[in-house]
């Protein structure tokens, strides 16, 4: 029965989102134009001469259209090329539903873990001085600089049957590789820097005075954290979480190595997109891809809103 409700609701959900997505596809150029117009109208000498402005704007627009808008349009056009019913059918296939489920589950796990670790790491780095701090920062950045395929292979070497912990895990019947834990681990590894990286500069900028004040007024460590630190960083934290989430859902390389590609079990959405494409099921493939794109677009819209809040310094004071 629960399955049934999932089947029935996801298409409607899609339709709800479609306009938002369309809006976002169109909005970057139009916003760009508006800004351009805002600059043009005062006609003062500080701006570039008209033709130069025109060429620059045209270039930027063309670039955006070719590299961002066009690919997005193609994804959606392909997804709907055989009508809405086959689009919906593609998304309600058991394999597709399982991939959606797995992707959301893995994203939830990685966001949860990285939220905790990221805040702790950023807190330690920004608020305290200790030996090896630079090393820790470098370590946090490591997943950014390592190719995702390598990140996946690391886990194969650690937890694979021929790896260091493999024999022990097998003897105790614990499945890490080619199962949800392995996929989650690889995703956590790849997305680790996002939260910490979003918080460190913010926390460093804010300094430690407020915390010191709270402690001198008799607050405990935890009270200080939840009453002072957390409210100060919550927008930055949300921003980091969103980026982390976007990457977690879209990760391909690392997950591909540790997934095992078991149909209806360990295929995430990005993996399924590739599999379906290779099986000539172009509509199904692009349907999943469009769903992923929509998730990404929603994330970006939310991110933009948050960014504005951050820019305008609308960090609400705690009560």
């Amino acid at each position, binding site marked *: 029965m*629960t*399955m049934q*409700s*999932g089947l029935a*609701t*996801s298409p409607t*959900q899609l339709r709800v989102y479609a306009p938002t997505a369309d809006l976002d596809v169109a909005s970057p150029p139009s916003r760009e134009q508006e800004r351009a117009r805002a600059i043009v109208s005062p006609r003062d000498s500080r701006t570039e001469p008209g033709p130069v402005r025109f060429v620059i704007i045209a270039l930027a627009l063309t670039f955006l259209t070719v590299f961002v808008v066009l690919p997005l349009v193609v994804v959606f056009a392909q997804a709907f090329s055989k009508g809405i019913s086959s689009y919906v059918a593609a998304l309600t296939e*058991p394999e597709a*539903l399982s991939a*959606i*489920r797995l992707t*959301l*589950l893995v994203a*939830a796990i990685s966001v949860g873990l990285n939220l905790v670790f990221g805040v702790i790491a950023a807190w330690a780095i920004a608020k305290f001085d200790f030996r090896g701090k630079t090393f820790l920062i470098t370590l946090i950045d490591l997943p950014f600089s390592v190719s995702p395929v390598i990140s996946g292979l690391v886990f*194969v070497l650690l*937890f*694979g*049957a*021929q*790896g260091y912990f*493999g024999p022990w895990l*097998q003897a105790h019947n614990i*499945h890490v*590789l*080619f199962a949800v834990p392995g996929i989650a681990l690889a995703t956590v590894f790849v997305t680790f820097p996002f939260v910490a990286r979003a918080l460190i500069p913010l926390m460093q900028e804010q300094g430690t005075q407020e915390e010191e004040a709270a402690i001198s007024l008799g607050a405990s460590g935890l009270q200080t954290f939840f009453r002072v630190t957390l409210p100060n960083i919550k927008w930055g934290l949300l921003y980091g979480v969103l980026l982390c989430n976007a990457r977690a859902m879209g990760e391909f390389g690392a997950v591909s190595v540790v997934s*095992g*590609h*078991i*149909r*209806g*079990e360990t295929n995430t959405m990005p993996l399924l997109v590739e*599999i379906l494409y*290779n*099986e*000539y099921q172009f509509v199904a493939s692009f349907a999943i891809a469009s769903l992923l794109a929509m998730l990404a677009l929603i994330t970006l819209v939310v991110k933009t809103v948050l960014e504005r809040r951050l820019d305008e310094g609308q960090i609400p004071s705690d009560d």
Partner: protein
Amino acid sequence: MFRRILPIVAGLIWAGSAFAADVTLLNVSYDPTRELYADFNKAFAAAYSKETGKSVEIKQSHGGSGSQARAVIDGLPADIVTLALAYDIDAIAAKGLIAADWQKRLPLNASPYTSTIVFLVRKGNPKAIKDWDDLIRPVVDVITPNPKTSGGARWNYLAAWGYALKKFGSADKARQFVGDLYKNVPVLDTGARGSTVTFVERGVGDVLLAWENEAFLAQREFGKDKFEIVSPPLSILAEPPLAVVDKVADKKGTRAVAEAYLRYWYTREGQEIAARNSYRPRDPEIGKEYEKSFAKVELFTIDDVFGGWAKAQKDHFGEGGIFDQIYKN
């Protein structure tokens, strides 16, 4: 908005498969067999529950034959492997997961269905490609994947070599011929499906060397008005083998079902499923029924011409082997 989304998300996450079978098998296979095993699994599950009253669910994993073997070695819990070539199953056996004599445990080299290598050309065959000789004409662009990474590509390579060996009678001439052929290859994809997509979707090349079943599938998917299949008079007998992964099956207690699964291939029903999916059946009766579906091709085996997979792999595709030498020049 969140309040509306959350239950949906939660529903999606928790709505696991309500149906739990008595036994679950994992079949780790290679790329082009998706349709084949979708058919076969359904038929086997029905036959098995009719015979024993138990339900069985077969999960599938598909990928490049070599990387699938690697995944099983690294712990992918496959009860059964059904790969593109014996060498890949040998690699799993070498790690002790499968008994070394696996290929003797089932009839016909443990390959209940076979295929061969054919040419897929564009409609009307504009370059008039009829036989292997035509592939080394300088004007012909040949699409085939990289034999270092692709199982199908190794069959392609060995088929060309076997043809040249038979025609010219010496290994030197065969090497010359295969070298000339690879000079006509503009792009080496990593897998058989990649090459098919290059040829079919992107329109690169004049001829695609492909599994017969892949060629038929591409023709079915994209239309007979776009592509023609040319079967050369002589080609290789490609035997994609299968085996129970002893270690996994014994641990999970699924050996009986896994063996029944493989034996089902040798029944009338199994053979018919193979034939319907454009794999050549072994059963002479079914073979006769589907005679018209497959062109008459003289087929040589890898054992006859190359002395088995282990030797072929070492001589031709190993580090610094013949392929490395000819592709460098």
